[in-house]
């Protein structure tokens, strides 16, 4: 019998922090007191917070045990579609931790922060080169803040033309952040249906585009893993009516060195450094969502911007039409260090990363297409989408398949997104996975399909291995308990 990757093992229970400890313990080396105490103004003084007192070992054991309950990219394959869970290089962490960067105050005079300013300047250049755009801002702290910045730019652009607009076209395959970001700028989301090939058709866009529409937000490749091949036509339709095209670059991992995003007619593109550029997800963040824009829109980018002059690098606020600031300082700087290090380590081989990512995804698609229902039977890009249609007759749903994959030692793919596909299973292997790992994943999926037919109750009861199983999300929502 072949040995599965997933197994049970030596895992510890661990209570909550305040269920441990003893008053008077401390896990911190308090600095030496070399100044006299001065009383705090009485009417302003408080009693301090009710925190548990723990020793250093209490804290270390606590978080070590908690970490063992997590599945990370370093644990195993993490094929979450549209998340690009590629390997997070350790050298990137070393660079971000360098004291010269980690210890730097953001408001140092430019002469004392040349290293950081050079990094910002260079990274803007590199991202511009990769995407084809002349101007970049690294300020947005995440993809959706990049989207917000893009929407602010749209708003500023139309305002500058004297004709504010109130609507934005959003494809039905769009990530939820798209309409949410549009709404923050007062744009009403007008949905555009994709066609039977799973992409946008120019006719559908032309029907909806008018002089009150600020533009369209397009993810390319889209969330079905398909290249929006009508993109140039669509861009023309939108531009002809005075609108702009926003590119959600979440899926850029399919396109580096292959697609010139600027040539597709996009005016503003955001990137997710925590996806395409290998920076770690951190259990939810921090990410980074730089925006890349055309020459015409550069003047609207957030400030300050990094400039190079004869003395070196400096920050300039001299952009009167800038949308302003979305971050107090310059964005998630240590995340930028990691992306920069990644680009310096890969160079032009970033193209190989995209090629292999696409190869891996198509390999999975070919191998699983007889086993799971493939709604769009055509070559995909870096991710492929299946459904649970074949398994429904055994009363097995996408959720059950996802939970059972955990027992096999894989993180589940993205499930139930995009919404246009019922029971979607979106698989994105990334280029990081070797052929053997991918073969193991394929074997696991095939085995699960067989279990669905022969032992569906095994899937309904999955997962069996993890510490907790099928948590009650209804209870959590009906009776929210958000703090102790």
């Amino acid at each position, binding site marked *: 019998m072949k040995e599965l990757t997933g197994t049970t093992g030596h895992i510890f229970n661990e209570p909550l922090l305040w269920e441990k400890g003893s008053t008077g313990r401390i896990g911190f080396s308090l600095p030496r007191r070399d100044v006299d105490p001065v009383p705090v103004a009485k009417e302003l003084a408080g009693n301090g917070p009710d925190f548990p007192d723990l020793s250093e070992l209490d804290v270390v054991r606590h978080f070590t045990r908690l970490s063992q309950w997590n599945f990370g990219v370093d644990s195993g394959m993490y094929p979450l579609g549209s998340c690009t869970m590629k390997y997070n290089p350790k050298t990137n962490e070393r660079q971000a931790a360098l004291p010269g960067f980690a210890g730097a105050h953001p408001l140092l005079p430019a002469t004392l922060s040349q290293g950081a300013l050079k990094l910002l300047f260079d990274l803007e250049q590199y991202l511009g080169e990769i995407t084809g755009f002349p101007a970049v801002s690294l300020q947005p702290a995440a993809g959706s803040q990049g989207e917000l910045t893009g929407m602010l730019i749209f708003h500023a652009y139309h305002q500058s033309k004297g004709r504010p607009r109130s609507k934005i076209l959003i494809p039905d395959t769009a990530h939820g952040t798209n309409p949410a970001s549009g709404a923050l700028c007062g744009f009403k989301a007008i949905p555009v249906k994709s066609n039977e090939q799973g992409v946008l058709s120019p006719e559908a866009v032309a029907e909806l585009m008018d002089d009150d529409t600020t533009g369209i937000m397009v993810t390319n490749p889209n969330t079905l893993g398909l290249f929006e091949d009508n993109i140039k036509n669509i861009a023309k339709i939108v531009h002809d009516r005075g609108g702009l095209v926003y590119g959600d670059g979440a899926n850029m991992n399919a396109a580096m060195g292959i697609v010139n995003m600027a040539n597709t007619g996009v005016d503003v593109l955001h990137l997710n450094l925590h996806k395409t550029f290998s920076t770690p997800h951190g259990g939810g963040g921090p990410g980074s969502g730089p925006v890349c824009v055309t020459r015409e829109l550069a003047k609207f980018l957030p400030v300050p911007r990094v400039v190079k002059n004869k003395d070196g690098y400096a920050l300039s606020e001299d952009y009167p039409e800038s949308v302003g600031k979305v971050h107090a300082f310059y964005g998630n700087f240590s995340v930028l260090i990691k992306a920069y290090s990644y680009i310096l380590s890969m160079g032009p081989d970033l193209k190989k990363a995209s090629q292999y990512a696409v190869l891996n995804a198509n390999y999975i698609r070919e191998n699983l297409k007889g086993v799971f229902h493939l709604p769009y039977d055509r070559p995909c890009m870096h991710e492929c989408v299946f459904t649970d249609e074949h398994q429904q007759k055994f009363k097995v749903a996408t959720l059950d398949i996802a939970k059972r994959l955990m027992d096999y030692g894989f993180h589940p793919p993205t499930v139930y997104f995009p919404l246009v596909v019922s029971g979607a299973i979106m698989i994105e292997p990334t280029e990081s996975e070797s052929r053997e790992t991918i073969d193991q994943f394929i074997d696991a999926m095939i085995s699960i399909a067989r279990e669905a037919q022969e032992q569906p109750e095994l899937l309904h009861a999955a997962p069996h291995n993890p510490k907790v199983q099928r948590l009650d999300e209804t209870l959590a929502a*009906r009776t929210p308990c958000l703090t102790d």
Partner: protein
Amino acid sequence: MKEVSELNFPDDRRYSDDHEWAKQVDGVVRVGISDYAQNQLGDIVFVELPDVGDTFEKGQEFGTVESVKAVSELYMPVGGEITAVNQALEDAPEQVNNDPYSGGWMVDVRLQDPAEYGELKDQKAYLDMLKG
């Protein structure tokens, strides 16, 4: 998810295309969602209802009903002023799942235009819609 045949649609009330039910007693129409709707939504965790005194037209959104992973808008089957709201749903939204036609009622509406009530589907017409 249950089949239509396993669900319940009492014939003592009318139904809208958006799966609300409406039951008229002396000029006041009590409104809730049908067994089909609650079954589709799954476990309901929260119901957002308007205030007494608010007025809506037929077809206007008057609230939302939430499951863990989805939000559905509620639309007025008839127009009028809200005269009562089922406060019990704040602490027990599961009533909508367990007892959609009685304990799970949502609002009472003072019927503005009796013709609107007549336009709603009866049990048979609603069943036909669900099966078709």
